[in-house]
């Protein structure tokens, strides 16, 4: 069962939201509705479900409704229509008390501009969620300290927020959210106010944290790079509607429409695509069974000038060239070991395109892709260049 499920979630700002919803049914656009009724459609029938332990990224440009959507999830903004299920319970019908309990126990939020309380120390900030649940002071300080240590701020308990850098402030924001030990973290553009280097660092740390703590994270961003780095799945929003939901690969390779495609075009593909996306099935010979003659025969068949050599367990041994094989044939050598070359470059399946490009650029022979020493594929120069040029003929089945 999904931990969070949004069904037809809509929000219209203005005096006559029901009328605007009707017009939406008739297929009018956000702009037309604004002109006709003066109502602004914030979110239009968003439906999605998030599984426990998933990082679900909601991405869109500013004004696309993503920040409204995340606030509908904990009812900081009341939905006009639709329902939100958390652990199967309908949040949209809850009374104030139950809603408060959900906010206290199940969902915490991290804000774009940190929203730390400037009059409270770092520790008191991290304690906040527990304090309003009336957790005894000692217990909540212990938990808050733990959370702060988790984000690497164990030594700053007594400082005030404005004494810390932006990156550190957001760690406090994160610790404040984690101290409650919620099931779900709502992160509203949590890293957007940070400079790029710190942002990367925080992204990595978030991924690590998530791997150990198994929280469900709903992450809002306008930055596709960030979405691709963090997201197990990504929902793309435009004009209040969700345009596409999918894994990063699905969105990159099969953009649902022009809007998504435009978005995707800007992405530096070299950062996203890895060896596994562009490798091909390799031609190999088995060192334990085959000799130079077979090698030559296979090379002639495939029209290639060198061939990879593996053993029966597909462990990569090296390669032989056509020249070496034909002289070995003349000398009547049966064993491939004599002509085996081992100076082949190896990369892992998740090596990024940038690195592969540097490696392959100086190498006349293809690069082997290995996984636990076993040969997984082969990359030729042409494939790298094609991928960097944005050729969508990238083979995702290998991923």
């Amino acid at each position, binding site marked *: 069962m999904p931990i969070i499920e949004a069904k037809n979630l809509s929000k219209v700002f203005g005096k006559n939201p029901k009328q605007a919803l009707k017009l939406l049914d008739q297929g009018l656009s956000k702009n037309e509705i604004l002109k006709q009724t003066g109502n602004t459609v914030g979110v239009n029938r968003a439906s999605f479900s998030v599984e426990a332990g998933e990082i679900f990224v909601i991405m869109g440009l500013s004004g696309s409704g993503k920040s409204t959507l995340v606030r509908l999830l*904990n009812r900081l903004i009341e939905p006009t229509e639709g329902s939100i299920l958390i652990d199967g319970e309908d949040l949209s019908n809850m009374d104030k008390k139950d809603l408060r309990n959900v906010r206290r126990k199940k969902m915490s939020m991290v804000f774009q501009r940190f929203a730390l309380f400037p009059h409270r120390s770092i520790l008191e900030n991290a304690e*906040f969620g527990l304090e*309003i649940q009336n957790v005894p002071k000692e217990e909540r300080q212990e938990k808050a300290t733990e959370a702060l240590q988790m984000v690497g701020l164990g030594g700053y308990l007594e400082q005030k927020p404005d004494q810390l850098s932006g990156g550190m402030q957001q760690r406090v924001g994160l610790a404040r959210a984690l101290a409650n030990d919620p099931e779900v973290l709502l992160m509203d553009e949590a890293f957007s106010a940070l400079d790029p280097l710190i942002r990367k660092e925080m992204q990595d740390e978030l991924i690590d944290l998530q791997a150990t703590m198994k929280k469900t994270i709903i992450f809002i961003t306008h930055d596709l790079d960030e979405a691709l780095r963090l997201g197990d799945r990504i929902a793309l929003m435009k004009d209040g509607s969700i345009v596409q939901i999918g894994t990063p690969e699905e969105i990159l390779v099969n953009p649902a429409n022009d809007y998504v495609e435009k978005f995707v075009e800007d992405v530096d593909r070299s950062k996203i695509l890895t060896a596994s996306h562009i490798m091909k099935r390799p031609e190999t010979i088995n060192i334990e069974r085959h000799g130079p003659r077979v090698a030559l025969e296979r090379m002639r068949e495939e029209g290639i000038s060198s061939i990879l050599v593996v053993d029966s367990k597909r462990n990569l041994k090296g390669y032989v060239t056509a020249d070496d094989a034909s002289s070995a044939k003349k000398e009547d050598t049966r064993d491939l070991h004599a002509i085996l070359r081992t100076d082949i470059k190896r990369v892992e399946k998740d090596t990024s395109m940038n690195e592969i490009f540097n490696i392959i650029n100086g190498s006349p022979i293809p690069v082997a892709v290995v996984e636990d020493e076993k040969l997984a594929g082969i990359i030729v120069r042409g494939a790298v260049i094609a991928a960097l040029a944005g050729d969508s003929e990238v083979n995702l089945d290998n991923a």
Partner: protein
Amino acid sequence: MLDKLLDFIPEIPIADWTKEFTKDITDTFAFLFEPIKEHFGNFMEFVSDNLMLVPPLIIMLVVALIAFFITGKKLGLAVFSFVGLWLVYNQGLWEHLMDTFTLVLLASLLSVIIGVPVGILMSKSRIAEAIIKPILDFMQTMPAFVYLIPAVAFFGIGMVPGVFASLIFATPPTVRFTNLGIRQVSKELVEASEAFGSTGMQKLFKVELPMAKSTIMAGINQTVMLALSMVVIASMIGAPGLGREVLSALQRAEVGTGFVAGIGIVILAIIIDRFTQSANEKKDE
């Protein structure tokens, strides 16, 4: 011809209505006004009598000492307070100073006790804001002398009606600044406190009021200053203190006495102003 048009409606008896209204209130709430007048009057006398029991030198030293510490161990305000208070004593106005101080202190305290909650109410409810705002404008723009009339009707003459008139005149800044301060708390902080499941009270006391504190303090500072400015006016209905000296000097055209009493008010004003302000600044750091 045109005048006839204007006279189409005869004069509306607003003045009579007000008179009737005030009389009704006086009669209806006499059971309330009488004990207030008596007990509160006694209480105020008790306060100023007690202040009079303390030797002036002790008060001067204590005020100077507090001034020294709240300004971050600087001498300026401490020296000024001491010399200023001494000058008032030297001019034989010490007793009047204590009366004035009592009046200002109690009027300000009541203004804050009433003003802050009303300001909170205003910040929370648009309807309350729409209703209260024009009332505040009215309270502040109506000439302060006018309040003296119902004050006398309700409470007779003396300190109590003085406090009442000061209260009406001096409360608006506290209300306004409390409202403003709470409305100015950043939306993200309010969201943060809600997102973690605060109740309305928790949000108010743990986030909004602490964040609005310096704005509210600025309002209180103004309230105190306004209360002080009412001192002279309130003396017209028999409130004792420096104001009465000023008034009697005015009536007898004695420029010297008037000036001296005026200086006393100025000294008190500066000390109170600096005290309330630096209490605010210090907590901002």
